[in-house]
């Protein structure tokens, strides 16, 4: 017993990187946002059926449902808070507020004659993540903190215990489910597979009689009684034995993979989609996911980003005030020193761009990266992409048609002198940035 308590104590306060907690915040936030947006219409319709209102949980005291207008505004407010939660903005306020509103909203949503048990874990996870330091990495708050000179947060027990608590809450819910099976009328019939087989048959007959989509594998599996014996035993082991998975990391991972497979099995046999579970998001806390992300980032950077060995060159109109302001902006944000610069009027431009860009064609910024050449809006977006977050977000405009982007670009380019002014000569770089300019 002492060993178990010691293991739990050490494991509970393990130092974990803030990225793991941040990833859980983003994952739960994205899932919840997807749910709120995809079910928006359905939920607005649902609350009109006032006869089905049956308040539960923390809303047990409600006698009447909210008006549909109030519910609409609450839904919108929750979506906005959900976005703040994902991006981690003003998290000290938005985190707890989102956690509280999520608890109330989902409780209200489950107060209409049907409890959706597959949302329990999502809500509990969000409540925990909203009340802890889950926005200390991969968030606007963290980014602003770094801009203000704060150090990058390192692994700490303050990021460890919420992760372990999320694991424990997940395991606890499966444990409760196992206890309910054993304590219920069926008891050990679950172990011989009969209970599972009859549950599966009842689910199928409901779907058949109420004309709903039936499960893909039901008909094949139902006739093989022995299969249910194995599945029944495995289900009981995974549920009753769930708390053991908290004792060792590896056990936790194995449990997570098996339980995730069980949910896919439920889908194939009963057609029930537990989306939070089936996508694996429920089980993320059992894995060192931040390492996967770091690995992927390394791989993607290695393939796609502008080569660091051969620095990319940005050619710009040296006498244009707007272009000069843009270059100053890029220099300030280009922490990785990705770019070097040269005016289009320079000899370097003549040499690199050749005849493609004569002095008459100075209405386009040009980015040359090795053999690749980007002009106009393509060049702007490619530069923004390389400047990292949050400027990288602008890169989504790449999805707009090229012609549309360039029409806007040309319009600004044509008016740039009249709007922003023209210099009589090219800008002279400051001493500390001189090395970044060709021809100086």
């Amino acid at each position, binding site marked *: 017993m002492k060993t178990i308590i010691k293991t739990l104590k050490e494991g509970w306060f393990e130092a974990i990187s803030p990225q793991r907690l941040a990833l859980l915040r983003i994952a739960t936030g994205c899932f919840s946002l997807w749910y709120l947006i995809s079910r928006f219409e359905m939920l607005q319709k649902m609350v009109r059926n006032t006869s089905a209102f049956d308040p539960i*949980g923390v809303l047990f005291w409600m006698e009447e449902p909210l008006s549909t207008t109030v519910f609409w505004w609450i839904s919108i407010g929750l979506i906005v808070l959900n976005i703040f939660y994902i991006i981690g903005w003003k998290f000290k306020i938005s985190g707890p507020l989102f956690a509280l509103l999520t608890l109330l909203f989902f409780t209200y949503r489950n107060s209409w004659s*049907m409890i959706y048990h597959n949302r329990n874990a999502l809500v*509990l996870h969000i409540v925990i993540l909203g009340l802890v330091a889950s926005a200390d990495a991969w968030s606007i708050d963290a980014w602003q903190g770094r801009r203000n000179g704060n150090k990058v947060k390192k692994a700490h*027990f303050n990021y460890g215990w919420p992760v372990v608590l999320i694991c424990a809450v997940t395991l606890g819910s499966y444990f409760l489910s196992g206890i309910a099976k054993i304590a219920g*009328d069926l008891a050990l019939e679950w172990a011989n597979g009969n209970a599972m087989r009859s549950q599966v*048959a*009842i689910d199928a007959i409901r779907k058949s009689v109420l004309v709903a989509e039936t499960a893909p594998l039901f008909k094949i599996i139902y006739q093989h009684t022995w299969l249910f014996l194995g599945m029944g035993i495995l289900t009981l082991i995974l549920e009753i034995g769930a708390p053991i998975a908290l004792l060792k990391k590896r056990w936790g991972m194995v449990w997570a993979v098996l339980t995730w497979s069980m949910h896919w099995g439920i889908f194939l046999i009963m057609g029930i989609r537990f989306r939070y579970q089936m996508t694996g998001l429920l089980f993320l806390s059992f894995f060192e996911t931040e390492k996967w992300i770091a690995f992927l980032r390394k791989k993607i950077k290695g393939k796609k980003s502008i080569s660091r060995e051969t620095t990319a060159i940005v050619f710009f109109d040296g006498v244009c005030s707007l272009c000069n302001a843009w270059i100053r902006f890029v220099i300030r944000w280009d922490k990785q020193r990705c770019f070097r610069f040269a005016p289009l009027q320079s000899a370097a431009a003549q040499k690199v761009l050749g005849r493609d860009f004569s002095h008459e064609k100075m209405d386009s910024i040009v980015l040359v990266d090795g053999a690749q050449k980007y002009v106009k809006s393509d060049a702007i977006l490619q530069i923004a992409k390389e400047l990292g977050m949050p400027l990288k977000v602008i890169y989504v405009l790449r999805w707009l048609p090229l012609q549309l982007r360039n029409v806007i670009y040309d319009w600004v380019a044509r008016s740039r002198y009249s709007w922003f002014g023209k210099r009589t000569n090219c800008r002279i770089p400051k001493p500390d940035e001189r090395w970044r300019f060709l021809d100086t």
Partner: protein
Amino acid sequence: MKYTRRQAAIFSIVVLGIVLSPIVQNWVKTPTDSFPFSYYPMFSKKRGATYGLYYVVTYDSLGRKEHLPYRLAGTGGFNQVRRQINKAHRNDGGISFLKRVEKHLAKKDKAYYSSLARIELVKGYYHLENYFLNNDTLPLLERNIATLKIKE
């Protein structure tokens, strides 16, 4: 939102205590489920060889019978509509429920609605093994709960 070890321990114990507290529902006389703190009672009821359930059937003017798809019988997902149908007979024997279904049908599928003569809320009992292994899909018994005439 930083916590000391003591605060973190208290927070964790409180959360886990609340999450696990519904376990007592397994042994109380009239257990009640809740959200998000549940004792997960699904799949724990003993089932017999036959199963009875409520559903809606429609009849056209020629007397042809059809089961009404759940999507046309209520709002929400499959299980939510099923619960609404199960509870329908509790208020005025299911008539107001059928009136809602009729209104919904008239709005959602006009062509289908115009072909109907009446709709019924029924409870049917099915033998599970016969239904799935012998393709005997007729109910052992089908009890009428409520009828709503659409055309005379």
